[in-house]
């Protein structure tokens, strides 16, 4: 049976396969931004399942990206060359390594999520933030993974097709989940946990599931990133990278996938734009400093947004949560 969203996914994938032939013609600078957009869409749409649809607050998404980046790199470095000439071609090894990275990140998500999501209250933000920093610290010490020097030598397998194919799959999974009766459980948890439990919904299960799925996609995004840049460093997955992703979700409107896709695109382009602005010498000094430091701008952006459009630039979620128990 051909369900609409499935046809749409297949059509999108075919279009991307076709388009990828033209991607070679783009200048490396713009190609870099394009791939960055795809990777950020995967990260933000995945995180939106947790922070948007399920109403939790994860603040360490880059940590799971790191797990995926390092795990997949380790896999391709170990098996990529030896098997590439033999039974499996290099693309297959690459895709398997991506999935391996995703599964590794999902496992990390499970280990972090189960204990912290069972607690009532907003522990998740603190725990994920901590885990993000710890994973960075561990990577900085891990000699087999390059430690402070970073890890390089991966082939550039990531191309236009794989990046946007995974972005399309992420969107497909999230939209089809939250659109189904099964996935309405995520929204119920966000809206009112007590009422959700009273309707027979295992709120812990849904929170963990959202968290693990988001971690999986972050792992995939990390693998794509690693096999695009061909060099990864613990600092590339720090707290600020996590904030980037959270801002995309908030700006796009929590629980609004289309909005988050647009926000991820805009916020990938924005730093490039700001870099250009900071070079204009005729601008006042202070303005150029602000432009150089995107976190200042993000903070201002978020404050203005929260005051004027708390539902996000494109969001339509207006629900309030009542926590009083009666």
């Amino acid at each position: 049976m051909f369900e609409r969203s499935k046809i749409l996914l297949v059509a999108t994938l075919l279009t991307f396969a076709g388009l990828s032939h033209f991607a070679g013609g783009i200048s490396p600078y713009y190609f870099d931004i394009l791939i960055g957009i795809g990777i950020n869409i995967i990260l933000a749409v995945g995180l939106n399942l947790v922070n948007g649809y399920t109403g939790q607050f994860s603040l360490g998404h880059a940590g799971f990206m790191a797990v995926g980046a390092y795990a997949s790199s380790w896999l391709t470095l170990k098996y990529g060359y030896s098997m590439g000439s033999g039974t499996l071609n290099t693309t297959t090894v690459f895709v398997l390594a991506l999935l391996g990275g995703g599964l590794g990140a999902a496992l990390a998500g499970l280990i972090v999520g189960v204990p912290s999501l069972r607690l009532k209250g907003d522990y998740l933000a603190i725990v994920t933030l901590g885990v993000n920093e710890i994973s960075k610290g561990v990577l900085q010490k891990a000699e087999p993974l390059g430690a402070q020097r970073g890890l390089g030598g991966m082939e550039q397998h990531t191309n236009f097709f794989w990046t946007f194919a995974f972005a399309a799959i992420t969107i497909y999974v999230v939209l089809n989940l939250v659109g189904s009766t099964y996935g309405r459980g995520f929204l119920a948890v966000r809206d009112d946990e007590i009422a959700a439990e009273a309707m027979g919904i295992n709120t812990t299960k849904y929170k963990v599931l959202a968290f693990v799925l988001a971690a999986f996609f972050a792992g995939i995004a990390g693998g794509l990133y690693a096999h695009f840049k061909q060099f990864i460093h613990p600092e590339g997955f720090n707290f600020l990278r996590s904030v980037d992703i959270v801002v995309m979700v908030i700006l796009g409107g929590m629980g609004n996938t289309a909005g988050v896709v647009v926000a991820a695109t805009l916020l990938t382009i924005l730093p490039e734009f700001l870099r250009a602005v900071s070079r204009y010498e005729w601008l006042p000094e202070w303005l150029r400093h602000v432009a150089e430091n995107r976190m200042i701008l993000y903070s201002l952006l978020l404050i203005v947004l929260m005051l004027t459009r708390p539902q996000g630039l494109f969001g339509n979620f207006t629900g309030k949560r009542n926590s009083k128990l009666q």
Partner: protein
Amino acid sequence: MNAPLLKLDNVTVQFGGLKAVGDLSFTIGEGELIGLIGPNGAGKTTVFNLITGVYEPTAGAITFANKSVVGHRPYKITARGIARTFQNIRLFPSLSVFDNVRTACNMHLRHGISHALARGPKFSAEEREIEATVMELLEIFSLTAERDAACKSLPYGDQRRLEIVRALATRPKLLLLDEPAAGMNPTEKAELMKLIRFTQEKFGCAVLLVEHDMKVVMGICQRINVLDYGRKIAEGTPTEIRNDPKVIAAYLGKEEE
């Protein structure tokens, strides 16, 4: 006689120094419609929270269909057949009327996440089945026209009825209603009484009703338990309760004046 559906046996719950419910015992038989009344702060809502696993009793036993519910998570207790509404309406504010009810069908899904993603024929069939169930319930409670409305846009009385629909969608054997008539006008109240009786007959579920409106309680309940300061001060038929001097002194007095 059969064993009761729900049995509270000397249930006590203590919040710090406050004994919100003390040594409370009562039973509900299958399909019975029982009232639970008492002044503000008597502990009625707390009894609901104890039965549904939101709170754990400090002492005493609660059994449902011969098995203890104490220590189980609320969603498991709902799965065993106890559903409830809330005194301060707790609908899912961002969901439509339809989706509020659909969400309560979640626990009966035969197909899980893989079907939601693969979207095969089994998935579609089950989603259609759920839609039919939800629409049938909305029909009974005359909410069909509001199907796609934001639940928060409904008038107060409709929101209360929607909460009952949502609870029924879990297919309970026991339905706990916490002040369902609050904020309703007399016509709506009369309609509600019919609906509660109809629900009890059509779905064969027992009902425990907390309500301050004595016309409603006396009008439909078979038996009534009266709480005061967390303790049971009386139990009996509506007529017995209406004439019980202790109940009149603690609760009914003012209204009879």
